């Protein structure tokens, strides 16, 4: 488990759209370098949460703080990886990864060092000069992830990035992600529908209820890595989370 330094804090965090209460008094914290997974039923307000965290929406009540200060996209570095790729078709793999650092006005030399390191970690070096239309979907996803990891981030928010992948590719990506996280140390909130995926990745899982969304339960996952999806301990946690999420 990561050292318990509080990084992000949600305080009575509430969001309504008109009469519709979406997030209802969410109180929780995320620790520095923690890998937190959020699972919840469809329509429970995960996208709303993402938009609130990055400051695209403001909460109806309560707040999110990063290192004790109210979240502010101009000050805090929050990176996102979504299901759809966010890649510029006119830039090469390398230049797509550079983008994040260019926007943050890093010196070119440092950009090179960082981008090269991350491309090596993700096996993208051979394709650095390829354009997006020349690479497969899985590769594009890696470019997205590389970009998210190469800047220092206060928080990396990942919203079902792998739900379109077939099973084998998905596990390959999950393992890459774990490797990166262990090496580069980041605070990650990873949202998923896939309970097996959550148990495979998380140090802690937060289970959301249906709308109006509250925290149903928090589950700490202390299994050693790499995790075995068919081990009894793994299956026990998976079944427990499934039970919590069940509405049928």
């Amino acid at each position, binding site marked *: 488990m990561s050292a318990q330094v509080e990084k992000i804090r949600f305080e009575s965090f509430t969001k309504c759209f008109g009469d519709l209460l979406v997030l209802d008094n969410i109180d929780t914290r995320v620790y520095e370098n923690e890998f937190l997974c959020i699972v919840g*039923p*469809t329509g429970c307000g995960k996208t709303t949460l993402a938009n609130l965290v990055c400051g695209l929406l403001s909460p109806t009540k309560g707040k999110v703080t990063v290192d004790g200060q109210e979240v502010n996209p101009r000050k805090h570095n929050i990176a996102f990886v979504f299901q759809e790729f966010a890649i510029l078709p006119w830039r090469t793999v390398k230049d797509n990864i550079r983008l994040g650092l260019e926007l943050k006005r890093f010196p070119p030399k440092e950009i090179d060092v960082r981008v090269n390191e991350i491309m090596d970690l993700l*096996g*993208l070096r051979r*394709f650095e000069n*390829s354009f997006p239309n*020349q*690479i*497969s*979907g*899985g*590769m594009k996803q*890696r470019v997205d992830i590389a970009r998210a990891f190469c800047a220092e981030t206060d928080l990396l928010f990942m919203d079902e990035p792998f739900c379109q992948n*077939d*099973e*084998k*590719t998905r596990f*390959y990506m999950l393992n890459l992600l774990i490797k990166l996280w262990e090496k580069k140390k980041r605070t990650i909130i990873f949202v998923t*529908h*896939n*309970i097996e995926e959550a148990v495979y990745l998380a140090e802690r899982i937060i289970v959301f209820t249906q709308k109006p969304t509250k925290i149903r339960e928090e589950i700490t996952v202390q299994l050693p890595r790499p995790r075995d*999806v*068919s081990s009894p301990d793994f*299956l026990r946690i*998976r*079944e427990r989370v*499934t039970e919590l*999420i*069940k*509405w*049928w």
Partner: protein
Amino acid sequence: MAVTKPKIEIDVAHSYDSLVVLDHIKFDVYENEFLCLLGPSGCGKTTMANLIGGLLKPSAGSVKLDGEPVNPRKHNISYVFQARSCLPWRTVKDNVKIALEIKGISGLIAEEKIATVLQIVGLKEFENYYPNQISGGMKQRVAIARAFCVESDLLILDEPFGSLDAQTRYVMQMEVLRICEKMKRTVIFITNNIEESVFLADRLIVFSSIPARIIKEIDVQMPKPRSVTHLEFLKLRSSISNLADISQEVAGGLS
């Protein structure tokens, strides 16, 4: 599983111009069997479904239903497509009714059939709702109800749950099994999801990536409903996932 003669005999190859999609595929389907066709995306599964349904003529070979070449004018084939297919100007009930209208079935018989099937898929209370008033999972149930409300020789389901989230998907899978239990049907269920195929299938045919070949045929013996966390289930799932050809190139590379 049935031991009698096959209901459907498939022996086809198909190309679009110079692109070979199906490279000599031969298999049989038995009456009241739940058969899953599993393959990576883009391997030609939908082409396969269209050939079986008689919507497309194979470049070579034939599809036979009860010993005769398949013919949508003669055989009753229900098809649930990947894309949702509700008419937005018709209520849930009237969307299901289409299947009967086309077959010229009306009156009390039609009303009864519709009532029964809506009951089974759990949409009775929503029969007067329009598609924009119901969820994605419910729309998919409308399509399934429509497919089940007529007597059919064959029911083809082409990735019907592809766009649903994991939990809704699970609920729908249970639903389909329950409906099949109640109203015996011969089902061909197409998916690229290994877990889903192991959960549903009596028998499972695994296709390679394009040009599609059959790389494995598996009788799934576990009793239904199956548990996705059962050890035997996980073992079968991972053995399929480890078949060399099933996954897109994982290590990456130029597409």
